[in-house]
C-alpha cells in the first residue's frame, strides 16, 4: 500500500508538474506511517522509494538548480524522520512485548503453585510467634479437620496431641526468639473427633522488620498413610521375628500381642482361643500398654464367646477380620463391654491354622479410629501366619516332647539299647549298654558287638540277623552268655525289633540288651535248691524206709531170740523133762535172753550217738595202754583159741579221747576178730603215729569178708552170714557203733579184707593238741 501511494503521488506530480516542495509532505506522511506500523525493512524500502521519487521529480524540472538541492534536502529529512520514528516505535513495541510476557509468566507460576498445593497434601498457614493461627489454606483446614474461622481462635498447640505439645511449644519459643529460623518434626495432631493423625510439621520464621517477633510460616503434611504403611510393615516384620525366635505359642503369644500393639498403636490386644470342643472361645492371653487401666482379674477371664456373637464371635465364625470404629455405637460383646470400658475402637481377626479358625486376636484402642481396608487385610495375613505358627509350634512341641521322651528312655533306660544297621553294624548304643558290657562305643562297635551278634544268631539258630530285617521277629528274647570288657561273664537277654522306614520296609533294628545274670543265677540256684530239696525228700523217704527196715530187722532179731526163750520156757513150764534137758534148755534161754539184752543196749547206744544225745568226754588217753588192757582181758577168756600179738609204737603220743569209748571200740574189733577166726589164727593189735593222728589196727587171719560185703560192714544189722560165718552170733550193730564212736572222736575207720586171708580194721584218733609232737609228755 505505501508503494501504491508513492507511485500515485509520483504520477500526479509528473503529470501536473507540480513543484517538488508541494509533493514532499505526502511522501513524508507515507514513510512516517510505514515507520510507525511496519518493521525495519519495510521502512527502508519505503524510504528509499520515496527518496527516488523525489529525485525523479527534481531531475525532470532540471534547469532549476535550486530544485535539485531542495530535493536532496527533502530526501535527507525524510530519511532522518523515518529512521527516528521507526526506532522510537520499535523500542516502544519491545518494551510493551516484554511487559506482556512477564505478565503471562507471572500468571502461570501462580497457577502451577496453586495446582501443586491442591495436588499435594500440604497445608500451609501462618502463625504468630505464640502459635496463634493467622491464616490457613484449605489443605491445612482439611488436615486439621477444622475451618479457618474456627482456627483463628486457636493455637498451633491446641491442635497438637498432648504428647508432642511441649516440643512444639519449645520450637515456637526458639523461633520467636530467632534462635533458629526453621524447625521440623513429626508430631501427632488431634482432630476434633478425637482421632489423631501423624503430621510432618515444618515451621520457618518469616522476616518482618517491623515487628519484634517474626511471623511463622507453617507447613503441614499428613503422613498418616506412610506412617500406617510403615507401621504395618513393622508389625508384620515384628510378628515374623517373634514367630521365628519363639519355640511355643505360649511363649510367643504375649510378645506377639505386644508387638502388634506397639507397631500398630493399639492399647490392648487379646487372644481368644477356641476350646477343645471348638464350641466357644475363651480369653487365653492379653497384652496392654502401660497405663491402661483395665482390671485383668475380672470375671471376663472365664468369659466364653460363642460363634457369631459380637465382633470376636463374628470373626471366629466368618474367618474374616472385622473392625468396629466406635464400640459405643456397635454390638460389641456385651459381657466384654464393661471390661473394655474406656476403649473405643476394635479390630478382630481370625487366627487360621490347618484350615480351621483356631482363635481370634482382638486389638482395642482408647480412641475412635477408622481401620483402613489395608490394615484389615494385613491383619488377616498376620492371622494366617500366626495360625500356621501355632500349628507348627504345637507339632514341633509334640515332636520335641516325643523326641525328648524317646531320648530320655534311650539315655536313662536301665536296659541296654542298640541301634543296629541292616548289616548288623552297631550304629548307636545307649549308656546302659556300654556300662553293662564295660566298653566304650569304639571297642563296643568293633569287637564286642560283632561277638554278641554272632552268639545271638547262634542261640537263635540262624546264620544271620537277616530274617529280622525281613520283618520276621524273634518270638521271644534270646539269652546268651557274654563276657564284658572287664572279663565278667553275664547272661544277656537280647530282644530285637525291626524299625521300618517311611515306606514300611524294615530298615534298621533296635536290640534291647538286658542283663539277666542275677535272674538267671537265681533260677539256677533255685533249680539247685529244688534238686537239693528233691534230694532231701529222697533222703527222708530213704530214712523212712530205713526206719521201717530197721524196725523190721530189730523185731526179727527180737522174735528170733524170743522163739528159743519162749519155746524152751514153755517146755520147762509144762514139765516132764529130764534134769539134763532142763539145764540145756535153761542155757539156750539164757543165751537168747543175753543176746536180747545186748541188742537192746547196742540199739540204745546207737540211738543216743546218732541223735547226738551221747557226748564223749575228751581226755588224755594213752592208746597203747588201752590196747594192752583189751588184749589182756580178751586173752584171759578160756574159750579163745586165737593168739594175740601186739605191735605198739612206744613213741605214740597221748591222744584226745574218751577212754571208755575207745576201750569199747577196740574190744568190739578184737571180739569180731576172735569170732571170725573160728579156727584160731593170730589177732594183731598195732598202733603208730600218722600225722596228727594215732593209727590203730586190729588184724586177724580169720574168715575174711567177701568183696561185695566189705562196703556194707559198717551198716547196722549187716552181718556176714555166708559160709562159715553164718553161725557166728552178733547183733549186727557192733561195727556201726564202732564207726560212730571213731567219728565222734574226729577219726576215720576202714577195713581191708579178703575171704580166707582175714581182715584188718584200721581207725584213727587225733593226737592230743599239746602232744602233736611225739612223746614229750611220756618222756618227760
Amino acid at each position, binding site marked *: 500500500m505505501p508503494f501504491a501511494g508513492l507511485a500515485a503521488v509520483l504520477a500526479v506530480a509528473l503529470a501536473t508538474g507540480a513543484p517538488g516542495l508541494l509533493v514532499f509532505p505526502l511522501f513524508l506522511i507515507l514513510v512516517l506511517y510505514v515507520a510507525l506500523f511496519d518493521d525495519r525493512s519495510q521502512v527502508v524500502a519505503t524510504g528509499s522509494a520515496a527518496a527516488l521519487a523525489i529525485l525523479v521529480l527534481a531531475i525532470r524540472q532540471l534547469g532549476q538548480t535550486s530544485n535539485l538541492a531542495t530535493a536532496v534536502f527533502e530526501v535527507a529529512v525524510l530519511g532522518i524522520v523515518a529512521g527516528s520514528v521507526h526506532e522510537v516505535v520499535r523500542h516502544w513495541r519491545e518494551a510493551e512485548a516484554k511487559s506482556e510476557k512477564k505478565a503471562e509468566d507471572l500468571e502461570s507460576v501462580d497457577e502451577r503453585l496453586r495446582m501443586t498445593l491442591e495436588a499435594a497434601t500440604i497445608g500451609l498457614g501462618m502463625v504468630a510467634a505464640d502459635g496463634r493461627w493467622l491464616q490457613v489454606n484449605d489443605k491445612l483446614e482439611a488436615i486439621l479437620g477444622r475451618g479457618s474461622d474456627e482456627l483463628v481462635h486457636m493455637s498451633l498447640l491446641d491442635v497438637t496431641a498432648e504428647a508432642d505439645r511441649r516440643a512444639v511449644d519449645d520450637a515456637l519459643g526458639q523461633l520467636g526468639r530467632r534462635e533458629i529460623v526453621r524447625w521440623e518434626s513429626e508430631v501427632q495432631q488431634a482432630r476434633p473427633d478425637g482421632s489423631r493423625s501423624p503430621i510432618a510439621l515444618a515451621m520457618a520464621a518469616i522476616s518482618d522488620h517491623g515487628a519484634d517477633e517474626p511471623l511463622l510460616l507453617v507447613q503441614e503434611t499428613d503422613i498418616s498413610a506412610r506412617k500406617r504403611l510403615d507401621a504395618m510393615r513393622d508389625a508384620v516384620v515384628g510378628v515374623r521375628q517373634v514367630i521365628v525366635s519363639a519355640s511355643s505359642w505360649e511363649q510367643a503369644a504375649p510378645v506377639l500381642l505386644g508387638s502388634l500393639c506397639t507397631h500398630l498403636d493399639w492399647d490392648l490386644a487379646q487372644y481368644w482361643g477356641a476350646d477343645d470342643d471348638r464350641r466357644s472361645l475363651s480369653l487365653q492371653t492379653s497384652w496392654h500398654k502401660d497405663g491402661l487401666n483395665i482390671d485383668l482379674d475380672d470375671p471376663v477371664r472365664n468369659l466364653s464367646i460363642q460363634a457369631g456373637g459380637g465382633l470376636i464371635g463374628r470373626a471366629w465364625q466368618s474367618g474374616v477380620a472385622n473392625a468396629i470404629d466406635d464400640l459405643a455405637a456397635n454390638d460389641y460383646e456385651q459381657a466384654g463391654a464393661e471390661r473394655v470400658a474406656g476403649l473405643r475402637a476394635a479390630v478382630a481377626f481370625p487366627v487360621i491354622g490347618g484350615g480351621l479358625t483356631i482363635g481370634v486376636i482382638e486389638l482395642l484402642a482408647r480412641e475412635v479410629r477408622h481401620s483402613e481396608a489395608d490394615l484389615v487385610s494385613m491383619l488377616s495375613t498376620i492371622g494366617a501366619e500366626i495360625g500356621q505358627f501355632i500349628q507348627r509350634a504345637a507339632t514341633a512341641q509334640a515332636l520335641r516332647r516325643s523326641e525328648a521322651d524317646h531320648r530320655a528312655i534311650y539315655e536313662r533306660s536301665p536296659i541296654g539299647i542298640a541301634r543296629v544297621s541292616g548289616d548288623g553294624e552297631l550304629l548307636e548304643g545307649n549308656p546302659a549298654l556300654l556300662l553293662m558290657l564295660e566298653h566304650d562305643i569304639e571297642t563296643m562297635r568293633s569287637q564286642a558287638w560283632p561277638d554278641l551278634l554272632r552268639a545271638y544268631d547262634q542261640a537263635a539258630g540262624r546264620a544271620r540277623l537277616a530274617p529280622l530285617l525281613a520283618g520276621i521277629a524273634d518270638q521271644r528274647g534270646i539269652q546268651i552268655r557274654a563276657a564284658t570288657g572287664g572279663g565278667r561273664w553275664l547272661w544277656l537277654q537280647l530282644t530285637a525289633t525291626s524299625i521300618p522306614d517311611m515306606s514300611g520296609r524294615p530298615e534298621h533294628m533296635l536290640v534291647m540288651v538286658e542283663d539277666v545274670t542275677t535272674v538267671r543265677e537265681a533260677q539256677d540256684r533255685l533249680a539247685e535248691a529244688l534238686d537239693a530239696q528233691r534230694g532231701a525228700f529222697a533222703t527222708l523217704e530213704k530214712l523212712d524206709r530205713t526206719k521201717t527196715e530197721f*524196725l523190721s530187722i530189730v523185731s526179727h532179731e527180737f*522174735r*528170733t531170740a524170743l*522163739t*528159743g526163750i519162749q*519155746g524152751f520156757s514153755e517146755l520147762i513150764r509144762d514139765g516132764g523133762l529130764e534134769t539134763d534137758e532142763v539145764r540145756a534148755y535153761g542155757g*539156750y534161754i539164757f*543165751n*537168747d535172753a543175753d543176746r536180747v539184752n545186748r541188742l537192746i543196749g547196742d540199739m540204745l547206744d546207737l540211738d543216743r550217738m546218732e541223735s547226738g544225745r551221747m557226748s564223749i568226754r575228751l581226755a588224755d588217753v594213752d592208746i597203747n595202754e588201752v590196747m594192752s588192757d583189751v588184749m589182756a582181758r580178751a586173752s584171759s577168756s578160756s574159750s579163745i583159741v586165737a593168739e594175740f600179738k601186739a605191735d605198739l609204737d612206744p613213741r605214740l603220743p597221748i591222744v584226745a579221747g574218751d577212754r571208755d569209748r575207745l576201750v569199747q571200740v577196740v574190744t568190739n574189733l578184737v571180739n569180731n576178730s576172735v569170732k571170725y577166726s573160728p579156727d584160731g589164727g593170730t589177732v594183731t593189735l598195732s598202733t603208730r603215729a600218722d600225722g596228727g593222728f594215732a593209727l590203730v589196727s586190729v588184724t586177724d587171719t580169720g574168715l575174711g569178708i567177701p568183696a561185695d560185703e566189705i562196703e556194707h560192714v559198717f551198716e547196722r544189722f549187716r552181718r556176714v552170714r555166708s559160709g562159715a560165718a553164718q553161725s557166728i552170733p552178733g547183733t549186727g550193730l557192733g561195727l556201726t557203733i564202732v564207726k560212730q564212736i571213731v567219728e565222734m572222736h574226729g577219726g576215720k575207720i576202714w577195713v581191708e579184707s579178703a575171704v580166707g586171708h582175714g581182715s584188718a580194721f584200721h581207725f584213727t584218733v587225733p593226737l592230743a593238741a599239746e602232744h602233736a609232737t611225739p612223746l614229750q609228755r611220756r618222756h618227760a
Partner: protein
Amino acid sequence: MPEPAAVGYGSSVVLVADDNEVAQRLCRRVLEKAGYQVLIAGDGQQAVDIALAQNPNLILMDVAMPTMDGLEAMRQIKAARPEMRVVIASAHSMANDRERFLAAGADDVLSKPFRLGDLVAVVARLTAKPSA
C-alpha cells in the same frame, strides 16, 4: 515116694529149715515128741536139696537164712514138687509179711515166737491124710 507116705500118722516126715540152732533144737524136740520124723536143714540150699531127696510130708521153713532165703527155697521146691506142703515159720512179722508169704505159695504161716501147741496143730493139719 510111696514109702514115707505109707507110714502112719505118727511117722510123717517134717523138714525143719532154720539157720538158728536154738530154733532147730526146739522144733525137733517138739515135733519128735508129737511123733513126727524130723529132718534139719541149716540154710535154703540145704532145704531144697533135702526136700527133693527125702520128700518130707511138710517143710517148716525159716525165711532169713544164709546162701538162699526160705522163700527162694520154697519156690524151687514148689516148682519141683507142687504138692509138697510148706509152712513158713518166720520172725518177720510186719503187717504185710503173712500175705507176702501166702502169696509166694506158702500153705500156712507160723509167726515166731510161736506157742508150741500152734506148731503141732499146723503140722498135724497139713500132714493129715485126706482119707483120715
